[in-house]
């Protein structure tokens, strides 16, 4: 049997490297569009200041992008290095969107980013804008394919288990493409990226305005960030992930945990604004409820019920029992493909095979499964409530704070008096880290909330790992943490250095602070 230590270490390594990767991704996703907007204004008006804005913010974008690329390769390697059984079991389905991402999107983004930086004086203005636009499209298409892959992990549609090849196989590609879960995720995730980039530009511009440096440059940047940020923050919240929570069982389970909803409430269900969930007694010790709200958000209706944790577990118990039959029948079918009664039995229970596999964490003897083992398996099908409940609330709270920041900033920049509102500028500057915190919590809720599965209802996490020694994992985790810490220090150092220099770092001779820089260099 696979040791818990190995599983936990593999999960830790994936979590660390994925969360680290997502420090850089959202900024990239949004910055590309801000660059497109700035450069479009340049092409339309011919004002050099917009070219300088594109180039300066592009410089900061480049510093961030380098680490996005670096840490992205890790993600692709890691499915193979650390999640070998996962890769075999679902590669037929999951591998396709990853490969297409490379072919359709990542090539586009990476080829044109080179021209974005180096072809300013080799391309006409419209052609360079086209390059920037293609880079932006590539970046966002890339996110789309990754989220189609991730959406499939949450709601595995269009695939079926094949006992000859012992893996899931694709049966309906368009079902995977148009998986409602993937669509909701794509819109939500890229919008979160746009919010992140808007906050980045807004906060740094606010800092220039506070210092009274390069005011014209900063004011224009501030305005673009405020407008783009407002639209994106609305999109994150309104078209938020919540719409996806009605789809599929994984999301229902997540929603029950996120809302600390132990019992199925009569529709429309109340919303737990704040609560203290008690995992042991499976209830909330204390809570403040808003009547009706949960039902309205979760189902967009007043009559549909949302299943509570206890109801979900009872349903899952039946699936675990059926899954045991599936595992036993599979054993027979694999060795005797001609045994038609076993084959029929397997077909009947096939959809619950994953729930049967959950038991492999506790036993290999499927003919003598004890009631305790079944209880354990059933209880494992719902993630711990408190981390989900609070993780989600932190993300949402930040979302609303950012929405109000952008709304006020947009209003202020329309009146073109943002530079005279130091409280707003200070607030904008202090909000700098917030979108990153929200993004990380968002991913935590999405992925921790899918446990105990890597593919919901299909493949348990503990079966997905590579058969490595824990020693190897300690070594590689150490290596990643060491490398990543070092790279983060270098990145932040450069980012701060160039953000402080501001547009003077372009060396155009048009901005304040350049004389000091040239002096220092000489």
């Amino acid at each position, binding site marked *: 049997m696979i040791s818990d230590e190995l599983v936990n270490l593999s999960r830790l390594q994936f979590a660390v490297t994925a969360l680290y990767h997502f420090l850089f991704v959202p900024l990239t996703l949004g910055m590309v569009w801000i660059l497109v907007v700035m450069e479009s204004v340049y092409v339309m008006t011919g004002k050099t200041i917009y070219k300088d804005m594109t180039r300066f913010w592009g410089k900061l974008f480049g510093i961030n992008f380098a680490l996005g690329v670096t840490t992205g390769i890790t993600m692709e390697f890691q499915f193979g290095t650390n999640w070998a059984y996962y890769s075999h079991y679902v590669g037929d389905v999951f591998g396709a969107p*990853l490969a297409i991402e490379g072919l359709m999107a990542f090539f586009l983004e990476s080829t044109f980013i080179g021209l974005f930086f180096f072809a300013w004086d080799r391309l006409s203005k419209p052609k360079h804008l086209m390059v920037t636009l293609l880079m932006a499209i590539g970046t966002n298409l890339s996110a789309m394919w990754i989220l189609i892959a991730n959406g499939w992990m949450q709601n595995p549609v269009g695939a079926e288990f094949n006992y000859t090849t012992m893996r899931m196989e694709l049966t309906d590609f368009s079902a995977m493409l148009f998986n409602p879960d993937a669509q909701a995720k794509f819109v939500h995730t890229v919008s979160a990226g746009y919010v992140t980039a808007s906050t980045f530009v807004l906060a740094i511009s606010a800092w220039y305005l506070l210092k009274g440096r390069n005011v014209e440059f900063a004011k224009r940047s501030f305005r673009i960030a405020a407008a783009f940020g407002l639209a994106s923050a609305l999109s994150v919240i309104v078209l938020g992930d919540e719409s996806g929570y009605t789809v599929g069982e994984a999301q229902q389970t997540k929603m029950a945990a996120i809302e600390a909803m132990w019992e199925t409430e009569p529709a429309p269900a109340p919303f737990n604004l704040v609560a203290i969930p008690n995992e042991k007694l499976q209830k909330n010790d204390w809570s403040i409820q808003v009547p009706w709200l949960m039902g309205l958000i979760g189902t967009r209706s007043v009559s549909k019920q949302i299943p509570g944790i206890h109801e979900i577990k009872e349903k899952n118990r039946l699936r675990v029992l059926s899954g045991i039959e599936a595992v036993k029948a599979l054993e027979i079918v694999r060795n005797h493909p001609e045994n038609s009664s076993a084959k029929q039995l397997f077909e009947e229970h096939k959809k619950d095979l994953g729930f049967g596999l959950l038991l492999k964490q506790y036993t290999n003897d499927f003919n003598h499964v004890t009631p305790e083992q079944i209880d354990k398996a059933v209880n494992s099908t719902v993630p711990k409530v408190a981390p989900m409940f609070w993780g989600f609330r932190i993300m949402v709270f930040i979302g609303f704070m950012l929405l109000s920041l952008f709304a006020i900033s947009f209003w202020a920049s329309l009146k073109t008096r943002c530079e005279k509102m130091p409280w707003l500028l200070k607030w904008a500057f202090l909000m700098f880290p917030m979108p990153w915190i929200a993004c990380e919590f968002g991913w935590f809720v999405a992925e921790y909330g899918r446990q105990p599965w890597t593919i919901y209802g299909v493949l348990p996490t503990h079966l997905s790992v590579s058969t490595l020694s824990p020693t190897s994992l300690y070594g590689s985790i150490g290596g990643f943490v060491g490398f990543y810490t070092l790279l983060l220090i270098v990145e932040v150092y450069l980012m701060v250095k160039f953000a402080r220099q501001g547009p003077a770092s372009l060396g155009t001779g048009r901005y304040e602070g350049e004389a000091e820089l040239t002096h220092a260099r000489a």
Partner: protein
Amino acid sequence: MDYATLKIIWWLLVGVLLVGFAIMDGHDMGVGTLLPFVGKNDNERRVVINTVGPHWDGNQVWFITGGGAIFAAWPIVYATAFSGFYWAMLAVLWALFFRPVGFDYRSKINNATWRSTWDWGLFVGGAVPPLIFGVAFGNLLQGVPFGFDENLVSTYSGSFWQLLNPFALLTGVVSSAMITFHGGVYLSHRTEGVIQDRAIKASTIAAVVMMAAFTVAGVWLANNINGYVITSHIDPDQLANPLAKTVIREKGAWLANYHVMPWTMSLPVLGYAGALVALIALRLKKTLTAFVFSSLTIVGVIGTAGISMFPFIMPSSTMLSSSLTVWDSVSSKTTLGIMLVAAIIFVPTIVFYTSWAYRVMAGKVTLQFIKDHDHSAY
């Protein structure tokens, strides 16, 4: 199209992507390997770096897409190779870490220690991956110690140090020298004067080393390394499960394909011929021609390794029937079909816009260019 044909097409397509990776990302890596040696001072090194500056990122995607294509088309190969070669893969990965940051961060700070540290980072990022890929091929040719249980869970029973056996190190030299040669040819095309002279000299030496090592490896393979043969009946149309066959090891089995299909001898021949023509072209300063021929060398050398093993992809030395082959390691027919359509649409598109990007940036990178673009160049 039937399943068997799709299986063959995907063997060829993975080959195309690997060769594409070696030609495109390979010339960046060769440039990275040569960087500390052909650039003697900061400005010379900036010239060298900026020959690949606008392109390395796009080129690296050949590698990422190659990985993705193996994941999608040969999932069990991806799973078994990446987890089995755990430390080798991490070494490649960590070496690659130095490239994006090395290129982008190096010239952002004007400090000699900072810059030379990143130069060596770019050297590691350029030199380590081709070496390890060569070593990996050497191990594939000998067979790798792994096996599957009945659920197809793979277990690797070797160690990292075992990968570094003499034959594999030799194929590592073939790969390193080939990529260095190719990078040097590219560098000679994009530079002038003293840097160009050094690049030509370096790639000449690398080409000679490559041809010598390739010859020794070939003789070694023919005489001392047992190949693998499938002994049970194989239905090329069958569903993919690697455990449904029997395999034996046999002396000279890796030469069998050359007897059955004599035209495949053209691959090793191309490996030599490409290098020789490229060397002559370099002499004549026909650098673009030299680049075309060093690319053909890569086709020849990688093709030789592939065709020697066909239909094997990753033979197992400890549990022979677990060996992974073109027939039983592939994805379902549906997935292969969809991926083929994607490849037919996008690979030509990629080639089209990549060549446009090279045309836009064409011309020699000079010391004057670096001086003029002090703020924006790498």
